[in-house]
């Protein structure tokens, strides 16, 4: 058990260091933006007023409110202090709404959509890949080119195709949103049903896109393992094929778990863009709203939450991986 403690300790320290850097990058990068959002807001609020004193006063008031009149290090300290209280500042474009308010209403949608979708895609892909490696012949000949082609369709493109086929042409699915626009979120059956119907297209677009890549990875890993010496030896000993296959796929699975941990960031990025196609009320759509209105607290809030999600998932997968494969734990401690 001592080894695990050390392994987890190392992982936690690494997690914290990455977190600090992520926060730092999230603070600095948006503040390099040349456009002055406060000037934009002031211009909007003051309207046609030509009184320079009023414009000046409003401008300074907002500079103060957003904390932009202080020096960078001071701003950073305030930023971190607020962050610890779960405060991400005030949104420029949806003033006076707070960024944490906007994000907390959208992050649930994203998690509920993306995690199951990526996981289901991963499982289906792995099963198909393992089958392709084991059955070979016809199945493999068809599956491989199809998966190769499918895995190269970007998530947003798959989203557009599904939307056009099922929502626009066949009219079996709703066009946009997370639920009927005339409903107020509550826990009634009509609302839950509406959420389920709106969920289908975004969900399947992400699943379909992630199947291909996973299937290809699992297929080559399985082929590699099936040709390994231990398999030949086991066959030689007369161990049943079924049992060998079980070992082979367990070994081939391991790199696939790491693969999932490493590609989760890329997958989520693609899925966020796919969300905007369906105007799904998740982080992707929020991010796009932030971009179009140059709302940098909103942009950096969304990216920070996305980073945090990726970090947590990677961390959890690392821990699980340590349990599944003791060799990894040993390698990390050394």
């Amino acid at each position: 058990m001592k080894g695990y403690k050390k392994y987890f300790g190392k992982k936690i320290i690494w997690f914290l260091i990455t977190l600090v850097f992520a926060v730092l990058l999230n603070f600095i990068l948006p503040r390099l933006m040349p456009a002055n959002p406060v000037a934009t807001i002031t211009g909007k609020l003051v309207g046609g007023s030509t009184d320079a004193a009023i414009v000046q006063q409003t401008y300074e008031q907002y500079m103060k409110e957003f904390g932009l009149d202080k020096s960078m290090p001071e701003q950073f300290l305030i930023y971190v202090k607020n962050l610890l209280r779960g405060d991400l500042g005030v949104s420029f474009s949806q003033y006076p709404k707070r960024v944490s308010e906007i994000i907390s209403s959208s992050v649930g949608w994203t998690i509920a959509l993306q995690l199951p979708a990526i996981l289901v895609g991963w499982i289906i892909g792995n099963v198909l890949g393992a089958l392709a490696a084991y059955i070979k012949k016809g199945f493999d000949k068809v599956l491989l080119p199809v998966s190769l082609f499918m895995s190269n369709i970007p998530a947003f493109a798959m989203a557009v195709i599904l939307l056009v086929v099922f929502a626009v042409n066949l009219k079996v699915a709703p066009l946009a949103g997370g639920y009927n626009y005339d409903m107020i979120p509550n826990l009634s059956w009509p609302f839950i049903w509406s959420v389920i119907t709106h969920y289908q297209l975004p969900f399947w677009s992400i699943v379909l896109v992630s199947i291909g890549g996973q299937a290809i990875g699992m297929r080559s890993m399985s082929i590699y393992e099936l040709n390994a010496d231990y398999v030949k030896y086991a066959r030689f000993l007369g161990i049943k094929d079924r049992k060998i296959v079980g070992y082979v796929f367990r070994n081939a699975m391991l790199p696939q778990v790491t693969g999932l941990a490493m590609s989760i960031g890329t997958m989520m990025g693609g899925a966020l863009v796919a969300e905007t196609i369906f105007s799904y009320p998740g982080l992707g759509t929020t991010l796009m709203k932030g971009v179009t209105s140059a709302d940098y607290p909103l942009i950096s809030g969304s990216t920070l939450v996305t980073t945090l999600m990726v970090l947590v998932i990677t961390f959890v997968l690392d821990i699980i991986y340590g349990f599944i494969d003791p060799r990894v734990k040993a390698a990390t401690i050394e």
Partner: protein
Amino acid sequence: MKNLLRDIRRSPRFMTGFLIFLFILLVSILYPLLSPGDPLAMIGRGTFAAPGTYVSLYDATSAKTETLLLPDADDNRLAAAMSDADRAAMVNYFTLSGVAIDDLDPQDTDRMIELWQEIFDENNMPKMTNAQRRDFRNLDKRLKELQASDTLYVMDMGEDGEYEQRSSVSKTDYVNASAVANAKTLLLGTDNFGRDTLRELIYATGTSLLVGLVAGIVATLIGLSLGLLAGYMGGVADDVIMFITNLFTVIPGFVLLILISSSVSQDMRGPSLVAVIIGLTSWPWTTRSVRAQVVSLRNRDHVNLSKLSGHSMLRIVLSDILPYVASYVVMAFILQVSSGILAEAQLSMLGLGPKTTTTPTLGLMMNWAMLYSAHTNGSWWAYFPVILTITLISFSLNLMNTGLDQVFNPTLRD
């Protein structure tokens, strides 16, 4: 080297990918040379003109006509002029008049007209509101006009305000399409700004390929040199480089891409800058793998021999280590190009793509099509070719990559 090239040429996967890619590349290079000009010229006023050949109506009226007596001309004219709403109105009239129409297909123009002429009675419309009566009378009038053998006149308004006949068009007049002075074939119609979509697409493909290429070169150069440095030098340099690399593999590259792109001003954000930014955020993969390979090479005999001979570090790295990782670097580069193209498209979809008024990119075209809801109004030509191009480029590059992988790693061969 000769054997390697022969193996690569014999890999069906590599060659398929290579040929698809070569075709796309050649079209995007040759077309602008053969047909130079502004790819973003707005040739149309409306939005989303459907694909097809557009013949100038003005010129057609003054072109030489032939008289053709085609048997189904009248039917076709009627069928084209009757909208779905008209047909629904006719069916409605039949139902209100109590006629059995169970086996009547609203799209069967012949039978619809026949039945209408038989049943419609202007002066006998019971059980209908006044508005309905008026609508049905108007419909009947229009249908009769369409069937009558009248002639259209093309008038010219003179300086004195009097109309003067220029030509007349009868229903049996036909014009040879090639005899009309102005006709334009738009294979993919026009986009939301009235621009030739095909032309735009070819130019966009070129720009996107360039973006992918630049991003791939930047990422591979950074990844390769950091990987070589970390792997060969070891010690503190290795620790520092690997710390940074690990950091950037965990922080999602897409997030960095969004943050950096949104902090660059819009006027500066051209395709080349976006490409460099993409390259700057996607190198860590290459660094990790190159370093891992270099570490395993570092203590090989031939490297030690070089060291003993007093060769400089640069020379050892370039001549004793680089050749061994070259095959991997080529493959990584191909993948970087393909993911660079995808990254540009995703950035543009979020509104963070290159801001340019001179050259389109695949991502920008996709963004425009979505902003003007081409996908919900049925204008497939504005987005589907773009999706297909992106997919084909990335498919061909990945095919080349797996083909190379099989050549370099014989265990993966089937």
